[in-house]
């Protein structure tokens, strides 16, 4: 027992390569993040900011842009330094890199988009702990070349933004009767305030997942039919 245990412990630091994603064309690396492997709708990551800030379209754009910036910059750096970063401290190093970019985007937002920064509040600094970013660093950027890592980061970043915007548009249009702050329905529309409050967020998110699930099932059924 002990001998085996020791042996496992010695073997523990595995080379990263075995887990590396299979080679694919660059456009597929990009497209996967938006559709088949969407961070929110398929991977169910980053749900916390998606729930919290999706009651205004401007929030979705700001949060999406900040996350995209952090994701692309950190993936670029992590991928280009993947042979230099020792395996044992890779997660700590990733977090340092991610935290640096998050703080940059937070400061720049405070300086040049102060109103947006105020409405997003703590959720910009919290990008540091967003699983989408650390997940991509660990599962993808740390194991592939720079071009693939960047294509993937753009795909995942835009995929996050798309999911955010779907939530934001539904919630703002119904809950406030506005789009990006512009009145849509005239003065007699009584906004369904429920939608911009947390329960409305859960409802919208549930309906979004339901639609995605139904769509996925349909796609699977069609493929099975073709296979027959």
């Amino acid at each position, binding site marked *: 027992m002990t001998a085996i245990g020791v042996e496992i412990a010695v*073997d523990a*630091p595995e*080379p*990263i*390569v075995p887990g*590396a994603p*299979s*080679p694919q064309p*660059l456009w597929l690396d990009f497209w996967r993040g938006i559709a088949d492997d969407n961070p929110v709708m398929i991977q169910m990551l980053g749900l916390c900011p998606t729930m919290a800030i999706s*009651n205004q379209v401007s929030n979705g754009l700001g949060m999406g842009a900040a996350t995209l910036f952090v994701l692309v910059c950190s993936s670029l750096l992590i991928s280009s330094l*993947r*042979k*230099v*970063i*020792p*395996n*044992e*401290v890779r997660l*700590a*190093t990733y977090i*340092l*890199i991610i*935290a*640096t970019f998050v*703080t*940059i985007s937070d*400061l*720049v937002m*405070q*300086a*040049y988009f*102060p109103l947006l920064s105020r409405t997003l509040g703590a959720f910009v600094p919290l990008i540091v702990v967003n699983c989408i970013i650390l997940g991509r660093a660990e599962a993808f950027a740390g*194991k*592939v*070349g*720079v*071009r*693939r890592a960047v294509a993937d980061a753009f795909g995942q970043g835009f995929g996050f933004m798309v999911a955010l915007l779907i939530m934001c548009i539904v919630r703002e249009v119904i*809950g406030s009767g506005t789009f990006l702050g512009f009145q849509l329905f005239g003065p007699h529309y009584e*906004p369904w*305030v429920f939608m*911009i*409050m947390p329960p409305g967020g859960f409802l919208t998110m549930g309906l979004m997942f339901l639609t995605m699930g139904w769509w996925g099932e349909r796609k699977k059924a069609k493929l099975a039919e073709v296979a027959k």
Partner: protein
Amino acid sequence: MSGHEHSHGAPAAPTPDAGSSTARLLFTLAFFGSLGGGILAYTYQQTLTPIRKFAGEKVEAAVKEVLGGPATIDTLFLVGDKLSQELPAGADVLEATKLFIGFNEAGERIGVAVEEWTPGFAAEVRLMVGFNPTTGALTGFKVLAQTETPGLGDKIAKDTSFASRFMGKIVNPLKGTKNPTTDPSTVQTLTGATISSKAVIKVINKAVETWKPRLEAYEKGGGK
């Protein structure tokens, strides 16, 4: 960025199986830590001016709004529990607690503005409160920060008709009621947002009760 890298598919193992030396691990973390720190120090310096400028402008705009557009504004700083024209050495102008005095073109004092807060329905409700210290009449208020319920409590900041209910009311102290009123010291609260409305009333009362004596003490002490 090199082309051959991609055609490899999976890159070579970055670390030997035996693991890295402690020195290398320490060096890596120290390197990325200090690199990140350096970049952030630079970004912080570059963004400090616009961030502070915005914070200052926000306060100034709020003061002007609640005093109805004064011609000039004087600023007094709270040092201990006394007002002073001088900011203590080393203190930050933005962080200091301040009282703003607004004057019209003729140089007459039209009112003072102060920032006060109280817990609301959700979290703090922070207001800039403008009042005339001689008559006790409210010249206006502006919500600086609030996280009240969207659609109900947040009307304290978004519903202009709510703010107009306070105009010219005498803080003696201010009271809230659920019905329309013409009483000079009573304000009608918002339907469905009584707690948020009362928080506003409470902040206003607190502002006048705390700052009026301070201002009087300052004027007695020879301040202009």
